[in-house]
């Protein structure tokens, strides 16, 4: 078993569906237990990532409103195999 990793994805400045596509690119490489931390300025990022997590069965651990951007912490739980 390899160690789970924590990865920061900086999508600040990118517009819908940029943050989601950036998250998905990282998700494709990720494995269960990994933490993906998405930084975004797009106002739709929060609801989009929530919808994504509901749909794909991954877990949102934390949503933090930072100064001028949002930090969404996702735990990967829905990878097959």
């Amino acid at each position, binding site marked *: 078993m390899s160690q789970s990793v924590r990865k920061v994805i900086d999508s600040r400045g*990118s*517009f819908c569906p940029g943050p*989601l596509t950036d998250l*998905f690119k990282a998700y494709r490489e990720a494995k269960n237990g990994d933490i993906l931390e998405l930084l975004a300025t797009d106002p739709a990022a929060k609801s989009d990532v929530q919808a994504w997590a509901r*749909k794909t*069965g991954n877990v949102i651990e934390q949503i933090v409103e930072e100064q001028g951007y949002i930090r969404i912490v996702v735990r990967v739980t*829905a990878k097959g195999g």
Partner: protein
Amino acid sequence: MTQATVVKPVEETPQTSKLCIILSKGTLDMAYPAFMLANAAAAMGYEVHIFFTFWGMSVIDKRKIDNLKVSSVGNPALPMPNLLGALPGMTAMVTRMLKNKMAKQRVPTIRELIKTAKEAGVKLHACSTTMDVMGLKKEDFIPEVDDIVGAASFIQMSEGGQVIFI
């Protein structure tokens, strides 16, 4: 007496959903929503198909993809008197304005969106009838196009999914 069959409960695991977009317009303001929705859906694990028909073919035509425009005619949402839209050069001007604005905001180009879409497994289908009508050949398309299909194939492909007509 036969025993009633026990119906197994539906699995809790998220199932694959499907999104099918029919893109019938060849302008920038129509191509963008199609690819943004396609990319968002693909990221959410949807199976995604885009069916290009009529003017939508311009978006996969390699001679036209980099020159998609925004129409200045019949577009009252533009910040100018509607009548001026018909003047020569207006379409080019409005298109240039939009492209500059998008580049400044770091909005990806249509080509970039197509690249992302393909990496995420989005399938691109060209309409065979439109190809006949417009005299297009497979070689005229960008290589990202998966296949050439007819109406029946698309109907079957989209069965059970969400369909959006643009």
